[in-house]
């Protein structure tokens, strides 16, 4: 009898603890990301993760994610892929298999995203790519893959259009200087196509290794060929190298750096010498966009400034937009299908058409976002949209560094 009572009490305690675990459990949807927090892509990766974290925090604090009448929270798990494709693929596998996460925010860079997205597709898990924009990512027929960048091939288009209509200076001869990797070469391909279509003469077209210490010979070669503007494609570190060495060598031409100038660090490090350089972005804090989560684009930038101590760059923006896109998809999937599964969320993303602080989020049938790039120029006072005209907040200025004026 005594033994029976003890066993009953023990069973009741065990049963009660499992029940109370269930009652105490929060409604949580987990997001995962394997992205570069170290290595040569760390600047881009950490900027993007700041965007993720800010969006998750904002959505959770304000209780914005509601499925039916129930409030849900987002939980974010981030691993550092160290800028290595193999590491990223293994980490994405880990997120899916061990952490049981169904919704992945994409890594940074095309080289890394290609194998990582193969893992998610194989496992029928949804990925929103927030750091890669080469079209080959989206031409593999993958159903569970979406991307927030428009096709990177078009990133230099607005700036090239601007150069083509410039009367003072007249820009007819272009030089290309491109890092030797998939992403940069893809950008170059698109820019060369556009340049030829616009009637430019390409006087120099050079490719350099990813690990470059000195590009002065390449810059001198382009200068000797008579370039009137430079189109440079690479990741952050080489953009820095090229611009620094252009200043040092006294090479003064309108310069487009695909990545780099949009980061606040560029202005901090180069100071006034950063003025008048061109770059591309899919989003800018001066855009007239708005959403219920962050308000306008400039309000988002203010929130980033308060949280991280610097104005928002477009990687913060795209990181937050990725989380927002998932949030809207969860709510839409629940409304239509009554449940959240990778398949219902995937379908919700495919039909998504929402306005956000980041602009319109709508995906084409192949999964890539239906949007275009802006031409941004750094001028005294900050960075400004200078083309297309309908978004421009300042006129373009053709000048060079303070020493060159």
């Amino acid at each position, binding site marked *: 009898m005594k033994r029976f009572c003890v066993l009953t009490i023990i069973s009741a305690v065990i049963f009660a603890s499992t029940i109370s675990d269930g009652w105490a459990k929060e409604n949580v949807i987990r997001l995962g990301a394997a992205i570069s927090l170290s290595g040569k892509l760390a600047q881009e990766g950490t900027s993007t993760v700041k965007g993720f974290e800010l969006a998750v925090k904002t959505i959770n604090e304000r209780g914005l994610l509601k499925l039916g009448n129930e409030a849900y929270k987002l939980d974010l798990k981030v691993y550092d892929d160290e800028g290595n494709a193999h590491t990223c693929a293994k980490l994405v596998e880990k997120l899916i298999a061990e952490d049981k996460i169904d919704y992945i925010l994409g890594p940074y860079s095309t080289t890394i995203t290609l194998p990582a997205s193969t893992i998610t597709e194989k496992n029928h898990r949804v990925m929103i790519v927030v750091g890669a924009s080469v079209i080959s990512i989206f031409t593999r027929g993958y159903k569970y893959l979406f991307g927030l960048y428009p096709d990177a091939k078009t990133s230099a288009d607005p700036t090239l259009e601007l150069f083509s209509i410039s009367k003072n200076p007249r820009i007819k001869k272009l030089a290309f200087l491109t890092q030797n990797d998939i992403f940069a070469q893809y950008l170059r391909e698109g820019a060369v196509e556009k340049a030829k279509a616009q009637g430019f003469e390409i006087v120099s077209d050079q490719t350099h290794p990813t690990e470059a210490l000195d590009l002065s*010979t390449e810059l001198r*070669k382009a200068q000797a060929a008579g370039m009137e503007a430079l189109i440079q494609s690479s990741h952050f570190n080489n953009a820095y190298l090229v611009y620094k060495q252009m200043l*040092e060598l*006294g090479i003064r031409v309108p310069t487009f750096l695909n990545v780099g100038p949009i980061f606040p*660090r560029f202005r901090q490090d180069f100071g006034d010498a950063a003025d008048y350089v061109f770059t591309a972005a899919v989003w800018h804090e001066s855009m007239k966009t708005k959403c219920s989560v962050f308000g306008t684009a400039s309000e988002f930038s203010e929130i980033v400034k308060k949280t991280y101590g610097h104005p928002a760059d477009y990687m913060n923006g795209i990181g937050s937009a990725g989380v927002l896109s998932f949030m809207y998809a969860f709510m839409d999937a629940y409304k239509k299908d009554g449940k959240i599964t990778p398949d219902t969320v995937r379908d919700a993303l495919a039909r998504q058409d929402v306005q956000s602080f980041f602009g319109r989020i709508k995906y084409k049938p192949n999964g890539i976002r239906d949007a275009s790039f802006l031409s941004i120029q750094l001028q005294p006072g900050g960075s400004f949209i200078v083309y297309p005209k309908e978004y421009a907040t300042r006129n373009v200025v053709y000048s060079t560094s303070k020493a060159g004026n």
Partner: protein
Amino acid sequence: MDSILIIQVLIAGLFIGGIYACVSMGFSLIWGVSSFVNVAQGEFVMLSAFITYWLFRLLHVDPFVSLIFVIPTMYFLGYYLEKYLIDKIIAVDPFITILFTFGLSLLISNIALRAFAPDIRVIITSYSEANIKVGRIPIPIIRMIIFLFALTVSGALFLFLKKTRIGNAIRAASQNRKAAITMGIDIREIFAITFGIGIAITSVGGSLLAIVSPINPLMGLSFVLKAFVVSVLGGVGSLRGAFIGGIVLGLCENYSSLFLSSNFKNAIAAVILVLILIVRPKGIFGERGVE
């Protein structure tokens, strides 16, 4: 081809060659004296670059002036590292020492990554954009100064080894270790001093590089490969060989960019290595011991 362009590329080659020379002389000196291949040599390039950067950023110390602090600091870092750590394994199997310094390289770079974050850093001075014109040829003043610094430091090291007692002891130890010990030279102390000097001269390369090139915590590894090639090219332990080898590598990289393609820049080092090993394995100035 425009002769001005050819001369400008010569200047570019001399500049980067001077930096390779500083890095390689330190590497070659350590290798030649203690038969120790320091795979972590590149991390000292990175550390000195960051010291120069932070002195500039926080205390507004001119990068060239920062060498007054960098050289002795890196000397003592190298000296004590050898005395209390590397000395324990220096007589062990060479493979073990390479493995050890490889691990040391990873440790230093990851500590730097934590301490400095993965951000790219640049130094922009008031004279970064200054140029002088020699005839029709614009020459960036900063690069000229860097090359002259590299030349001066190399010359000073050469004189030190030739004209001082410690220098003579280092040369003796590299030529015949047993005889040096017999003559009363404290070989372990000499190794520590050599290591310190090797790190110090390598750090000159790092500080000079930071003035014209962006730096990051993971930049060290590529320098080890260049230093290795230059040391083999010039002859292990030959400082004259390391200096000339560095200049040759810098010129080859830049002229290959000019006449072929920039993509050959990194391949050139490998080609030089293979050719030297086939044609003259001892290196151009390869001799017994440091000279």
